[in-house]
């Protein structure tokens, strides 16, 4: 395939370099890039807050910042990272870029809506950043009532307004992906020929569409209650603060799957490609993604085992939680089995993907600790929980996001990234991550509560280890930022299919033309039809 030699102005990046050409673009690929830039900036804000938190936790007494500032820092960190980085991370960037390409379409079904999503996202982000910077918010990302409605003196309403607006961006993106998947598939692209990344985008979109409205309305009720001093969450009137938690977690538990399911999709693509093998148990993988997405809606009460929720409800939620963990386990087993009788290569995306599998496994297994009713009493609201969800969301999602970014970087930018640096930073991230978060499991079981700038001195050694790890992790994240930017200018020009990967996105030039394909592709084989006879790539 010689389409790599296409002239610069023939690809989507060459379609104009003015601000205007980017800000009014309807091209899903460009919108994906707009998202990438936006969430990178937001990641830097959330990451700075995290760095300050880890710095402050070096000593048992909050010496770097005041406790008020500490409370605002972990709120900034949580709100930005959850709603303005993790949730849009893979779907809005790689998803936006790849969904139409993987199914052989020219664009998403509703390109204008797609651009509107980005503007809504930016508007929401600006609102929230305003709230977080102008005085700050000290409620934590969970906004629990009655603290958020009655007792906090911070910018709660502005912050939730931002989240509310960004919620619409999520909904519209999800809607767009669902319609696109149903309507725009190229001839021959049947459901069971879809790459697993598409399945993961489809499942994620379902969650985005079905869960986000609940969050939006819950935050709306909460803001009204704060503004008018009356509401159904207010115990002083006979209302029920636990009702807020039910409504909040009805969204926020599925939201975890919004963050991790796309990562599973990315990992599946990378592992299949670098094993040159079909994903083991493809159909089981597709079904398990759907199972995770749907069971994810009935387990929210496991965030509330010690909240004052009834023991019966807790029991039901615990059982359901164990059920949802089965499909996740199945996925890990299948990725492992894909390596069997394969031809593994360890390019940087594969290192990231294997790192993802390892960290996700630990995150998933420790989730089982938390799902166990009796044990959760000890673990709830301690650093064990903090470590667990960082293994899933940061270890899992961000690792896969970086893997995907490297994997599709040649396709997106037309340039190769520097392989050596990329492998090095994948390893650095893996080591730094484990050093940061593994000690938190131990200090969590010891009983150290989350959201504590002051803590008993005997916990210090674990916190020092964790902060040390965080500094390594920071390098692991900063390096790709630098060499990927470098590669935009100095990187080797990428061929159309540097990995000799299957998948429609690799059948067009790098970067692709504005309309993605010169002519609509016709699909004749299953996903990952890597054939054994192919010679190993030199």
């Amino acid at each position, binding site marked *: 395939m010689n389409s790599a030699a296409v002239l610069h102005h023939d690809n989507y990046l060459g379609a104009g370099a003015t601000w205007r050409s980017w800000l009014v673009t309807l091209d899903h690929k460009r919108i994906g890039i707009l998202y990438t830039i936006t969430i990178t900036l937001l990641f830097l804000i959330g990451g700075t807050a995290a760095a300050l938190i880890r710095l402050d936790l070096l000593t048992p007494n909050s010496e770097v910042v005041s406790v008020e500032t500490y409370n605002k820092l972990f709120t900034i960190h949580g709100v930005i990272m959850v709603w303005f980085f993790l949730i849009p991370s893979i779907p809005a960037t790689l998803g936006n870029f790849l969904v139409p390409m993987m199914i052989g379409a020219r664009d998403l079904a509703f390109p204008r809506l797609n651009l509107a999503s980005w503007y809504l996202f930016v508007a929401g982000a600006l609102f929230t950043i305003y709230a977080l910077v102008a005085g700050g918010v000290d409620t934590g990302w969970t906004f629990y009532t009655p603290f958020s409605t009655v007792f906090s003196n911070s910018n709660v309403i502005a912050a939730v307004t931002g989240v509310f607006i960004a919620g619409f961006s999520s909904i519209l993106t999800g809607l767009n992906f669902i*319609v696109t998947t149903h309507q725009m598939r190229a001839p021959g692209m049947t459901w069971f020929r879809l790459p697993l990344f598409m399945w993961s985008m489809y499942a994620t979109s379902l969650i985005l569409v079905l869960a986000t409205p609940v969050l939006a309305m819950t935050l709306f009720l909460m803001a009204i209650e704060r503004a008018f001093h009356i509401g159904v969450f207010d115990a002083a009137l*006979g209302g029920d603060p636990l009702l807020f938690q039910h*409504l909040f977690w009805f969204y926020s538990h599925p939201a975890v799957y919004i963050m991790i399911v796309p990562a599973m999709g990315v990992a599946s693509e990378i592992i299949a490609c670098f094993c040159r093998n079909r994903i083991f148990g493809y159909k089981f993988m597709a079904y398990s993604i759907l199972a995770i997405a749907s069971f994810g809606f009935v387990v929210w009460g496991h965030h509330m085992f010690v909240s004052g929720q009834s023991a019966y409800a807790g029991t039901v939620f615990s059982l359901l939680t164990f059920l949802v963990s089965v499909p996740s386990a199945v996925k890990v087993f299948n990725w492992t089995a894909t390596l069997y009788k394969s031809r593994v290569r360890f390019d940087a995306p594969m290192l990231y993907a294997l790192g993802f599998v390892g960290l996700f496994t630990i995150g998933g297994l420790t989730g089982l600790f938390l799902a166990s009713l009796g044990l959760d009493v000890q673990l709830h609201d301690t650093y064990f929980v903090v470590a667990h969800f960082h293994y899933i969301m940061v270890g899992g999602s961000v690792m896969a996001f970086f893997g995907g970014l490297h994997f599709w970087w040649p396709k997106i930018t037309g340039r190769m990234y520097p392989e050596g640096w990329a492998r090095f930073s994948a390893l650095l991230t893996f080591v730094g991550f484990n050093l940061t978060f593994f000690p938190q499991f131990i200090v969590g079981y010891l009983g150290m509560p989350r959201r504590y700038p002051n803590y008993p001195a005997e916990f210090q050694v674990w916190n020092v280890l964790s902060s040390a790890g965080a500094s390594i992790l920071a390098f692991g994240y900063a390096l790709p930022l630098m060499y990927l930017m470098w590669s935009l200018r100095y990187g080797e020009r990428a061929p159309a299919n540097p990995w000799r990967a299957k998948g429609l996105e690799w059948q067009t030039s790098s970067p692709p033309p504005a309309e993605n394909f010169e002519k609509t592709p016709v699909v004749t084989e299953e996903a990952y039809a890597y054939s054994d006879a192919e010679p190993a790539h030199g």
Partner: protein
Amino acid sequence: MASGVAMTAPQFDDAEQQRSSSNLGIWIFLATEVLFFGVLFAAYSITRVRFPDAFAAASRATSVTLAGINTAVLLTSSLTMALGVHAARQGARRALVGWLWLTVALGAAFLVIKAFEYRLDYVEHLIPTINFDHSRPQADQVELFFYMYFCITGVHALHVLIGIGCIAVIAAMAARGAFSPSYFTPVDVTGLYWHLVDIIWLFVFPMLYLVSRS
């Protein structure tokens, strides 16, 4: 577009694909609307289960007559909307424009009646934080009922208002001949939205107004 012929957007293969995509899109959007209101209904139901007597007493203080008339008005507007879509399919431009404006008028009538109802609530000191009468029995819980009542009916009224705006725009477009039997997706989609607003009200009515009337 004035010719009433569909412009197929470049990402679609043909008009049919575009039309079914819009249709699928609007139905997904409607599902999110159901979930939006569903949260309000959930909050209402759970609070009501905890204070059945207070909610029953509070519900008896609402105006079932005005709300009942309003239900009929909204059901009728749903009929006119359906007939409008039918006219669009037939290519009957005058009928389409007529039905759409009639729908707008009925929607406006709904809001006017709603306003009278709110005025009545004001007179009877039922508006939380503004003039709520705290001397009645179980006042706090009755106030919670009215808090939910204003949240639900308020958000619903906002949807009616948005619906009226959309239908008015569609009516103006229709008058200019923007639609034809082969292209009337905007009419169809607006109609679906309007019917959903109607359906939401069908739930609001018994849940807020008919509690323990016997």
